[in-house]
């Protein structure tokens, strides 16, 4: 899983490290499929992605994805954005499946189980789990607590809950107790590693064993 909506909240430095690390045959869960040359587009360009689950792959400059897709080199599972969020949340919260009204009667529900409940039609959708979530936040502490910046929050808090190992890049780390406990958006229990990325340097601020 990779957080971000458009360019806001995309953990570019973590993705760069992923490209450098050489991981391949990845399944990427993300709202978009990358635009321009950096971030997810760099993963696409390096041909590391076998499958992508997303809501909005096509963008003005999604040429790296477009080329892989047209060449049949990447498998696309298109999911309505709210169902994408709901399925990620279902994974994080331990549900087996959910009945969602979104997509009923459309191509994206073809072949899926449906049910009428209280006069309304629903589609059965299953959780999306991940081995790793790469997310971006504004500030973190050594327990892994995170706060975000504006609309860069988007998918990060729910992805952090749905992955076996969540790695967060933060712009700054603060000492324990500096974050208002009422304001913590992602409690540290959902974050296994924190990397502070400030300009060219980076430093690990939390490092917990992951089962992924």
């Amino acid at each position, binding site marked *: 899983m990779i957080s971000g909506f458009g360019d806001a909240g995309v953990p570019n430095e973590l993705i760069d490290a992923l490209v450098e690390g050489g991981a391949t045959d990845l399944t990427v869960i993300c709202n978009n499929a990358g635009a321009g040359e950096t971030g997810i587009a760099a993963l696409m360009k390096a041909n590391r992605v076998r499958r992508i689950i997303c809501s909005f792959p096509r963008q003005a400059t999604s040429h790296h994805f477009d080329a892989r897709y047209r060449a049949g080199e990447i498998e*696309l599972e298109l999911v309505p954005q709210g169902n994408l969020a709901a399925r990620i949340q279902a994974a994080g919260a331990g549900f087996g499946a959910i009945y969602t009204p979104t997509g009923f009667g459309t191509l994206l529900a073809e072949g899926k189980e449906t049910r009428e409940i209280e006069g309304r039609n629903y589609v059965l959708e299953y959780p999306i789990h991940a081995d790793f979530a790469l997310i971006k936040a504004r500030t973190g502490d050594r327990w892994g607590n995170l706060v975000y910046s504006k*609309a860069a929050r988007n998918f990060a808090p729910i992805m952090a809950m749905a992955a076996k190992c969540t790695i967060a890049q933060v712009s700054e780390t603060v000492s324990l107790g500096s974050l208002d406990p009422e304001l913590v958006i992602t409690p540290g229990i959902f974050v296994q590693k924190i990397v502070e990325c400030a300009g060219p340097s980076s430093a690990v601020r939390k490092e917990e064993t992951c089962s992924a």
Partner: protein
Amino acid sequence: MQRLSRTAIAARVAKDIPEGAYVNLGIGLPTRVADFLPIERDIFLHSENGILGMGPAPAEDDVNWELINAGKQPVTLLAGGSFFHHGDSFAMIRGGHIDICVLGAFQVSVTGDLANWHTGAADAIPAVGGAMDLAIGAKRVMVMMELQTKSGESKLVETCSYPLTGVACVSRVYTDLAVFDVGPAGASVVEMVDGLTLDALQDMTQLDLKWAQGQ
């Protein structure tokens, strides 16, 4: 007969958005509706990427790329606005908390089916975004579009030929020639531009149209 410009359609939609409404404006043309919402009305704009209380575009030297709308354009936040994650944002949509959603469309059927995400072309790269959630989630879904395609075919249809976004979800359609109510009882005309007649409109759309109740 004078067709409404896109801007004029946006202004017409804005007239129907009441004080206190929570509103999501779809990407593209519907975004322009914001320009016509009267300042004296408290209207709360929602953006599915986690913003409530969205304000107008910022000055060029005040752009923050972490404060963008669903169309990825820079916006501002009004006093009283708030940020939240995608889960909560789509709970607002799917849970029926958004009063009005304004969307563009390829086609709308007389019973309110919406087609606005996919042309059905075999070589198109599909992308759906939040369209399907918005279509079935908002209390009231309004569509704004030109009534006819460039080749003169009606986009208000008996049955959509394009892949559906949602079933029986649209309640009103604003076009350059007329405003329609759609739903279980079929399509009816709320108003039309000067110089147009119901007969001419039926001819253009190939639909059996009547005036809406009370018009």
